[in-house]
């Protein structure tokens, strides 16, 4: 029983906020300093080669692969005691997984958190970029499931690495062309491939293509972590990011005929909420913090007094 009795690890008791700012026997922000240094070296390389996927020795985290282990490792490696962290999933601060990841960092690093986009120094996200423009000095950390934009066209990593090396992206252009020939449109609505700094074809992670234009010339640093696939990539501030398209079929984003039912915004990405079994639905901002800020400023949508209730606890 020695192994169990002698360890500080395990168990769910004892939140952070001790001298080390960590949790029980764990280091600040969970990862040991050696691992953080290894990850920061990968990040530096990624920043130096915008859009290039840097292999790194991804650690096994106490959350499952697919839950954001890449983003969590990136955040854990760059976060300091003075940082203010915002975590969103599907644009919302209070989706269960965003709550869980925020709690993980509060517990292991004792850092301050916020829901306000403008107040955060680090924003970890899954599937969205906040509506509000990000600021210089902020860092946006994306959780990435499949970092390879060519993966669905070529399953082999040995092949796709060659294609990147040669900047041979013909198969992607052919795929987009075939979409247009078959459907009249490019049939990709999220994780829409981008070209970073005119060189690497890059997966923006499964954000809706609505968010792609925000990546271009963004004042904030964008870091991408793929834990299971063991890759990190980056887009430095004010880098050119182009969504692939053709002269006669320019890139376009999703639009809705509806506005946000709560805040009345007509320029945000909307979630559809099904109201009954007769096809009635309402549309609300996916970015909950942005929607709340607008309502606080007096904006109202057609159903603006509907009070969000709750996930059945």
């Amino acid at each position, binding site marked *: *029983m*020695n*192994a*169990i009795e002698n360890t500080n690890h395990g168990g*769910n008791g004892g939140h952070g906020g001790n001298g080390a700012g960590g949790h029980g026997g764990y280091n600040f922000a969970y990862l040991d300093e050696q691992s953080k240094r290894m990850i920061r070296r990968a990040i530096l390389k990624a920043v130096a080669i915008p859009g290039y996927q840097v*292999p790194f*020795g*991804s*650690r*096994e*985290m106490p959350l*499952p*692969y*697919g*839950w954001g*282990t890449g983003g969590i490792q990136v955040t854990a490696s760059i976060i300091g005691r003075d940082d203010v962290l915002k975590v969103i*999933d*599907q644009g*919302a601060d*209070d*989706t*269960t*997984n965003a*709550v*869980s990841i925020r*709690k993980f960092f509060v517990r292991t690093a004792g850092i301050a958190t916020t829901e306000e986009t403008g107040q955060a120094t680090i924003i970890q996200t*899954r*599937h969205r970029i906040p509506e509000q423009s990000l600021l210089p000095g902020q860092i946006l950390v994306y959780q990435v499931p499949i970092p390879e934009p060519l993966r669905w066209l070529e399953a*082999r*990593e*040995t092949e796709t690495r060659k294609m990147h090396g040669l900047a041979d992206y013909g198969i992607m252009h052919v795929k987009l062309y075939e979409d247009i020939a078959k*459907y*009249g*449109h490019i*049939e990709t*609505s*999220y*994780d829409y491939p981008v070209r970073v700094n005119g060189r690497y074809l890059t997966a923006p992670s499964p*954000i*809706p*293509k*609505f968010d792609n234009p925000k990546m271009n010339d963004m004042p904030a640093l964008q870091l991408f972590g793929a834990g*299971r696939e*063991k*890759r990190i990539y980056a887009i430095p501030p004010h880098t050119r990011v182009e969504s692939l398209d053709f002269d006669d079929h320019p890139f376009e984003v*999703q639009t*809705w005929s509806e506005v946000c039912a709560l805040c009345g915004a007509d320029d945000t990405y909307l*979630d559809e*909420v099904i*109201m009954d079994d007769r096809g009635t639905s*309402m549309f*609300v901002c*996916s970015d909950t913090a942005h929607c709340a800020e607008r309502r606080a400023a007096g904006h109202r949508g057609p159903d603006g007094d*509907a009070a*969000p*209730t*709750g*996930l*059945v*606890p």
Partner: protein
Amino acid sequence: MYVAVKGGEKAIDNAHRLLAEARRGDPETPELTLDQIREQLGLAVDRVMGEGSVYDADLAALAIKQACGDLVEAIFLLRAFRATLPRLAESQPLDTARMTIRRRISATFKDLPGGQVLGPTFDYTHRLLDFDLARPAEAPPGSAQDHGQAPDQPSPKDESMPRVTDLLADQDLIEREVPGDPHGPVADLTREPLAFPAGRDLRLQNLARGDEGFLLALGYSSQRGYGRTHPFAGEIRMGEVAVEIVPEELGFPIVIGEITVTECQMVNQFAGSATVPPRFTRGYGLVFGASERKAMAMALVDRSLRARELGEDIVAPAQDEEFVLYHSDNVEAQGFVQHLKLPHYVDFQGELVLVRGLREEALARRKGAAE
């Protein structure tokens, strides 16, 4: 009316409480102890130690208890714990020829130096439910009262047990296993990500940690013709081996403990080539504990994955190293499969917008054609 996702934190706390309740089951039933799990569910403990890649039966038993018996979840718990441990040293290569044998069989020779030792095995049990086990035994198993007589097999075996493959190698009938540089670096996929082509050290590490079910199916597929390798179970042995390290300040090996392992050496055909005369080739499996099925499957897959090295056509999944090594890890696989239950409504909304647009256009076209 509008049900957003507020209250996520409370819902999570409640979920954890419900899970704890479900784990405990009926409180009238005595709670499991780790000793009971370790001693009476030893094969589950062995699997969790192997795929969790930590040799610690107590921690594995704790993980099994915490995971309510879900072994893949238990493996995940142990792996996440493992990731926080420092790497103190690299051991010397295990010498399985010096194993304290509890089981040793060869399917290729009727008798051989050291003999065959059946040991504890399900192999010749009739799979009839033993209703006597449904109630606690009155006397300890193996006592005279239990089955009339005690097992008379002396165990464990401690005499010299040369490996079957070494006997074949003496006659040059099987390829030589040339030891690598004992001071050279050993690949570790927990520190550096997989890269291809993968060396055999990296491959064997990957397979040893790999999911038993995945390897079993792949090994099976190779037997059924998807990349046939004509295997014979040259030898399977299970028992205790010493783990040695060489501390820098001492400069000679010291034993730091003993572990139980199962080793399988498959002997496979090879037609030979222009430069190499026909001789047998090897597939190798080694796992923690008594995990014979996994060791055998591993040996089959290891041999299949040597296709490129041996100049064989790569035509089957079991021969494809990217396919096998990228998909063998059940901690990675279970995470990515199950992440589909996380919210995806932003992406799904994007797809809805797209499909509705495409449908409108299709309907308009059909209407136009009808008019």
